[in-house]
């Protein structure tokens, strides 16, 4: 392995990159824009659910229950009372309401006589997560109402439940959506970037220069990779700074450890890109292929939306076959839990193995001749 050869590939890429005015900007703009959009936008905090109430009872008890829902500005966005349950259904069908409460006549009367009394809760199920969370909100509000009434009339509940959220005391979803984006972006953007590096030469024909030159396969691939890693590390700093400065996510762990882990992670994603690039013959396939692999796995099988531990057996296994799961675990451990090296060491080793495997395969599959 000769350092000079690697350097010349590196400089060649830099020159091409520098001369391309648009790419020079968009390569850094893309991760930034993804970060901004998802950071501000991907609201997994479920709030402002538009709701309306049909109160057919109009007694103190039913009004009290209504107030309980109306004063809960955090979760529900109270739109008004409706005269009939039909109106609620219509609102949900038209997409204007997502939640409705119907209090039937004789609600209070039944309670006073000592019978259970039913209220109807209507939920729009087209976003299942939001539906199940708003159902939980509603049940806990109704529970609160019941407990308050019971404590007045009969006696107190003999049970007290204290809930504490570790690592994220206020259960701020945004902290997690933002810091979780770092490994996802670092699996998508470096892979796309690296996946175009070899195939673009194939498509243009300049690969013949490489075939006929004295450079070895490893030197060629390393030169390309070092370049991709340089660009991606800049992107890492951009999105890391955005998440702690703009989104104010507290970073509790050791920064240098995180830097080191991200470096290894970027090595793995760029090697994956190079591997894709060795296989395909056109850039559009390389681009779609890298998007395909990384978007689904990054968002769905990494633990970003659903914890990997509660996935079905197949999905659990599948999640372990790609780096994003390990990257996300490290990111969460360092950002939120201030974990030490001992906890994350297995994950680091796993990513390192991915890197070696991807790079080894890339060397194996890159041919210095027509295939």
């Amino acid at each position, binding site marked *: 392995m000769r350092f000079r050869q690697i350097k010349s590939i590196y400089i060649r890429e830099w020159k091409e990159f520098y001369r391309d005015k648009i790419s020079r900007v968009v390569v850094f703009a893309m991760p930034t824009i993804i970060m901004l959009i998802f950071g501000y936008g991907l609201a997994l905090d479920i709030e402002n659910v538009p709701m309306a109430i049909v109160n057919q009872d109009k007694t103190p008890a039913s009004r009290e229950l209504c107030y309980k829902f109306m004063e809960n500005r955090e979760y529900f966005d109270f739109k008004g009372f409706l005269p009939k349950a039909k109106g609620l259904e219509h609102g949900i069908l038209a997409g204007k309401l997502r939640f409705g409460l119907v209090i039937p006549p004789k609600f209070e009367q039944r309670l006073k006589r000592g019978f259970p009394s039913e209220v109807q809760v209507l939920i729009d199920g087209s976003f299942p997560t939001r539906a199940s969370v708003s159902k939980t909100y509603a049940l806990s509000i109704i529970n609160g109402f019941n407990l308050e009434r019971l404590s007045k009339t009969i006696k107190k509940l003999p049970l007290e439940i204290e809930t504490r959220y570790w690592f994220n005391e206020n259960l701020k979803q945004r902290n997690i959506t933002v810091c979780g984006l770092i490994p996802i972006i670092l699996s998508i953007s470096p892979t796309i970037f690296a996946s*175009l590096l070899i195939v673009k030469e194939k498509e243009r024909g300049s690969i013949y220069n490489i075939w006929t030159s004295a450079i070895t396969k490893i030197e060629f691939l390393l030169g390309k990779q070092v370049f991709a890693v340089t660009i991606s590390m800049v992107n890492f700093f951009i999105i890391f700074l955005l998440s702690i400065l703009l989104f104010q996510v507290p970073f509790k762990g050791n920064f240098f450890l995180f830097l080191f882990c991200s470096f290894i992670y970027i090595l793995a994603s760029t090697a994956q890109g190079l591997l894709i690039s060795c296989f395909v013959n056109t850039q559009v396939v390389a681009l779609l292929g890298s998007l395909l692999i990384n978007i689904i796995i990054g968002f769905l099988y990494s633990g970003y939306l659903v914890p990997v531990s509660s996935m079905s057996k197949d999905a659990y296994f599948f999640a372990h076959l790609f780096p994003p799961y390990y990257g996300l675990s490290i990111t969460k451990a360092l950002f939120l839990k201030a974990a030490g090296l001992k906890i994350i060491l297995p994950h680091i080793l796993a990513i390192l193995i991915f890197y070696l495997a991807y790079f080894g395969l890339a060397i194996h599959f890159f041919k210095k001749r027509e295939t």
Partner: protein
Amino acid sequence: MRFLSLLKKEFLQFIRNKGLVILVIYFFTLDIYLAGVGIDLSLKNAKFFVYDRDMSVASREIVSQLVSPWFLFEGYLQDDDLIDTVLLKDQAMGVVCLPHNFSKHLKKYRAKIQLLINGSEALMGYLFSGYASQIFINYALEGMQKQRLPLAEAKTRVFFNPNMNSRYFMGISELLTVMVMLVFILPAAALVREKELGNIEMLLISPLRPFQFMLAKVMVMAGIIIIGVILSVFLIIKPILHVPFCGSFLLFLLFTLIFVFTTSAFGLFIGAVSKNMLQVSQLSAIVLMPTLFLSGSWTPIEAMPDWLRPLTYLSPLKYYIDASYSIILKGVGLSYLWPNLLGLTFLGSVLFILTGYKLRRLF
């Protein structure tokens, strides 16, 4: 005739790129399957440990109330430090702590249960604590008195997706995402490829009108995507994910046709602006993400920040997605959906004309 041979050329160019054909087929079938099957956004098998310092009948009974399919009991912890470890290593969603004398307090005064939740999984953490508290409170209420108490009871009715099955949602939203991605990237890549290979010169000197050139590309790409949509609806969405297709398939197809046709013109616009594939890849991601996001396919519009909400009306995808969800899940007809049709057609035509203008300057 000239136009027909251009159509043929575009089609052949697509078919001969074997890798691309395989990828597109994969996108419309397996990819949607993976997204729909693997992920369940509701609380399922949430693992928990119990730190029980009482070890009485009552304490065991209350823990046994947390059952599958929502919860999964992993075992008892013996000391304090282990709580820290299991939560740090993500081995559990939460730990239930029961104090000394739990059963005694439960009979006499107030017993305290502590729920320690792994806050690094915010959404599931919330659901975990919500479900568990619910279950514990009901248990305590039942224990209080034998007869039924005068309680307000909620009877829930969930519209369109009664079991809150996230397969439907994930399957449909993945189909839409895949579609939008291809709608942007395929035409853009087809155009840039001509530029990179130098073919574009040949087309420029040929007696073709820019509009014909654009129409041929758009028609072929739109055709491919529509075939993909039909494939995935009949191979994956209906038979495997069991999404109930309530509305009319033809109406859905009409919306898809208008959407794909007009938006793929915008893909050409990206192609016309870019000089190489690197630019296409980055630019299409930059355009793709906001379009997808503003459409409300991932998060509903009411969950967005106030200043962002008016902007959603600028995303043609919004009208399309609203309409598709309504047709597929709600079975709504055209009488509800004509504003969407209008909005989609209008925004689409604007994009189409804009692209035509840009391409004319290229020629």
